[in-house]
């Protein structure tokens, strides 16, 4: 009797361990846990509710965009234009709502911003899916061109008079939880639903996993690819709407470097650049790690010299996470 119980226990443990190993997110999750423990041991303020909330708010736009870019990677493509898309979106949103410029009503401006986001995503998607240009080239071109477009839209001035309704998107709270967190939760819920509960989600994974098989199975690869790019465009617009109004000024540099951060988060989260593989939990861990690092470095109070080493430390963290992940998955086999 005792004996059987024992074996059941071990097999349960074994199953749990293999389950954990299968989930790529777990290593990252443990790493984040370790990091949090160390930092909060050194500086307990790190675990304060306010700080966690701030980190979450900072992570929100990155998280929202990552949900889109992850699907693009899963479908076997890449999108490095999101940073410049944010720039264009922020600029056009600013122009539309600014009291001294177009003065559109906020809800119209919000709707138009979302449409522009989808439009840019569709443009990427059309070139990739229907013209057949490699996505890295299309989005690299867009990264450059849209940054120039932002400068032209802004025309050397900043928008400093965002109306309160728009500012509310960035600073407002519902039930004392920031609006951006509600939005992120909605986006996550929709993404989970999309991935696990709709045919299109399954088809995105199928397309990235084996495009030829997908074609033979009668999937419309082109519309799937179009969809993921448009979806990313939409999410970029959503992220812009909840993050840019956190600040009072819209400048022309919004979004610079976001594409690198987002791709890093998604990749550190275990999404394969070859398509077909990627989990939302992994991406969430990636986002959490990447947004935490810089805060952690401040909370460690390493002194002035360390300021100049922070980029190197961040880089080493990324490198470490990637290499550890590869080491683990190689040794699993």
């Amino acid at each position: 009797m005792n004996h059987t119980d024992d074996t059941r226990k071990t097999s349960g443990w074994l199953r749990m361990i293999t389950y954990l190993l299968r989930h790529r997110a777990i290593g990252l999750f443990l790493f984040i846990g370790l990091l949090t423990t160390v930092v909060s041991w050194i500086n307990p303020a790190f675990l304060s509710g306010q700080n966690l909330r701030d980190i979450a708010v900072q992570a929100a736009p990155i998280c929202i965009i990552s949900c889109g870019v992850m699907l693009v990677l899963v479908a076997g493509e890449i999108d490095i234009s999101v940073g410049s898309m944010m720039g264009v979106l922020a600029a056009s949103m600013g122009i539309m709502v600014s009291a001294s410029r177009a003065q559109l009503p906020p809800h119209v401006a919000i709707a138009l911003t979302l449409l522009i986001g989808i439009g840019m995503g569709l443009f990427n998607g059309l070139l990739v899916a229907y013209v057949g240009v490699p996505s890295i080239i299309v989005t690299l071109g867009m990264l450059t061109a849209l940054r120039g477009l932002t400068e032209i839209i802004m025309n050397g001035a900043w928008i400093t008079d965002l109306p309160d309704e728009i500012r509310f998107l960035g600073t407002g709270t519902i039930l004392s939880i920031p609006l951006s967190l509600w939005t992120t939760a909605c986006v996550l819920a929709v993404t989970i639903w999309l991935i696990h509960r709709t045919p299109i989600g399954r088809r995105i994974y199928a397309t990235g996993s084996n495009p030829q098989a997908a074609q033979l199975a009668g999937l419309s690869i082109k519309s799937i690819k179009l969809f993921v790019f448009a979806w990313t465009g939409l999410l970029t617009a959503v992220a812009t709407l909840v993050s840019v109004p956190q600040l009072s000024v819209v400048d022309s540099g919004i979004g610079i470097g976001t594409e690198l951060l987002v791709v890093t988060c998604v990749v550190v989260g275990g999404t394969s650049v070859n398509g077909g593989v990627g989990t939302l939990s992994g991406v969430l861990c990636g986002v959490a790690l990447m947004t935490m690092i810089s805060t952690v470095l401040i909370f460690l109070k390493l002194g002035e010299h360390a300021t100049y080493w922070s980029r190197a430390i961040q880089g080493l963290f990324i490198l470490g996470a990637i290499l550890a992940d590869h080491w683990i998955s190689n040794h699993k086999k």
Partner: protein
Amino acid sequence: MRDPDMPSLNIQNLSKSYGGTHALRNVSLKIHAGDIHALCGENGAGKSTLIKILSGVETPDQGLVQWNGSHLSLGKVHEMESKGIVAVHQEPVVFPDLNIVDNLYAGRELSSGMGTWLNTASMKQQTRDILDSLGEDLPLNQPVGEMALAQRQMVSIARALFNQCRILILDEPTASLTTRESDALFKTVISLKKQGVGILYVSHRLEEVFQLAEWISVLRDGILVSTQSSKDLSEDALIQQMVGRKVAYPSRQQPVNTDITKNKPVLELKALSRTPAYDDIHLKIHAGEILGMSGLVGAGRSEIARAIFGIDEFDTGEILFNGKKFQNHSIRKAIDLGIAMVPEDRQRQGLALPLSVETNLLLPSLNAFQGMTGLDRSQMRSISGQLISKLGIKTGSPDNPASALSGGNQQKIVLGKWIHQNPSLFILDEPTRGVDVGAKSEVHRMIIELAKQGSAVLLISSELPEILSLSDRILVIAKGHVSGELAREEANQETLLKLSLPEEAKQSP
């Protein structure tokens, strides 16, 4: 016998050309429900084009297809599938990162609320039912890419079956299966036939064709040559129709050299082990000998070959080459010592398809053409020219990309890249998989020729007649162990099959 009211798939005057070459010309064919109809032809005869059209992947230039008297709109996978016309393609077409359920349902997920909510529970249940009906017990949550090749093939057959299929098109379904697995498949095919499913069976393995099919149609150069009852047809006649000429089926009736075992051993493996792939492998191959290696797919044959060629490492044991221990070896070292390998997956492991025939032929030996001034282009041209004519590679120019050639000719390139270096050991892993009848016999003749010239040959093949007709000795591998070694005289299909089965009885109690 046949009920004239049984529904049938009626193909009329299909034509399709790609950039000037006619892949199909006026092909008309009728497939009745409840029949097994075989389609034979050499590679490039138009079989795959026909399959692509019938499965809705391609649209024909001309012609129409009727199902049960009504016209089908062509070029749509969904249209064909909704009518129950489903194809299982030669390469197991699966999504390696997805599990079985998602594989089976990709593109036709069960959902409610206008595609907004997947019915995962019922998809899982149905998947289980289908696997049960096939007698397969596969884990539902494992990514298919982690499964064995044969299992993947079963997944793609299961995918075809569950859709209430009326006409099932099987394209070379046994190409990657072992005999036992093939037998399981045949049983499924026959039971489907009894349920009234019409089957279009495409295969290079003529014995299968005769075993299964009632009707045999032959395609040659895009034209339908004949449709005959299999009872009225002999194997020779069929081959003649396929090739358009008489082909002598080469086989090595007698060992060329009866005393090969007295030759010095070229390769010797001593207790080679690597968990979990293979364990305690001993073998010896002598110069001029063809050693056949038989066994089920996944028994560890390819892994042993890979270890010899230096692709993978092994845990313990040693490899002796010409009597000398082969230490911390790499592919390059193996090649320099005189080992050559024709890998099992021609397109992925054997060729750089977009590159020219010449480059592919000379790829392993390019360094030899380097002089002070650069590559000796004229010497390269003359050597590649010699190889092309010696091997009978059909190509317009050595500069044509390898991708433009047929499967058989591609396989000849893979052989050819080693031949001019006169290796002392050839490792051939499934050298005739997916190669048509004509080219197959040429490859066989080349293998015999290699042995005659004194090379040792390690031949891995799942095709028992091939192993039986070519080998001097046969080694059978089962579950990573050598389960038997037979001289050519002792071996026949039954003994080989018995040895390859992993018998539970053999294991220690």
